[in-house]
């Protein structure tokens, strides 16, 4: 299917990526992480550390989504006018 096709194309197309490109990607990732975002000037963070923190951060975000889903479920069960409230909250965000 289309997914498989594009995957094979992708692996054959860019078989070699340079160290520089990897480093650049690591830095981009680092800038997304609250833990490491500010340490960028003082000392260089290892790639392994960045990847580790990335995993932790994603796990935290997943957990937050879990919690928020639970709270939403409770709130929606308890409000009669949930529909209206939802729209209201959408408009005021």
């Amino acid at each position, binding site marked *: 299917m289309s997914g498989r096709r594009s995957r094979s194309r992708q692996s054959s197309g860019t078989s070699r990526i340079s160290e520089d490109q990897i480093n650049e990607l690591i830095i*981009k990732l680092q800038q997304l992480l609250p833990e490491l975002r500010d340490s960028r000037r003082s000392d260089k963070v290892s790639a392994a550390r960045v*990847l580790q923190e990335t995993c932790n951060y994603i796990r935290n975000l997943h957990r937050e*989504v879990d919690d928020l889903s639970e709270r939403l*479920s409770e709130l929606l069960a308890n409000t009669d006018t949930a529909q209206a409230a939802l729209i209201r909250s959408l408009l005021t965000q």
Partner: protein
Amino acid sequence: MASPDKPINTDVPEKNAFALHFLQTLSNLRTQNPFNSPNKTNDRVTKIKKAAYVSMARAAGGTNRLWSRALLRRAAKEDNKIVRLRKKRVTWQRRRRNQRAPEVERLRKLVPGGGGMETSKLMEETAHYIKCLCMQVKVMQCLVDGLSPK
């Protein structure tokens, strides 16, 4: 914040598109089975969670992204209840990858569709995935705040 550099596509995920799709799915869920039925709480939470992820994947460009495509496909599979176990092919390339960087392998498991990606692509997709997750959390928090009794 977005930079014009080539390697990483830094387009910010569409917040409103996510919110709209999520709300639509939520209201569909409500009409299908009313939320105030006391049992099936866990079921409901699971459905809301799934709605959130699917909406995020749709807002993020549907099938244009590798991770969103993987996520949507997985969701569609769950809906059809056809759960096929995929054989894990361990090619020598993958085995070598495993030996090289355990951190990368861990990341692979967290990003939808990460198993089939090249390392550079994986990192690019991860950056986008993180941005989308942050946006998702923000919007859901807004909804929770808006619905909470004042």
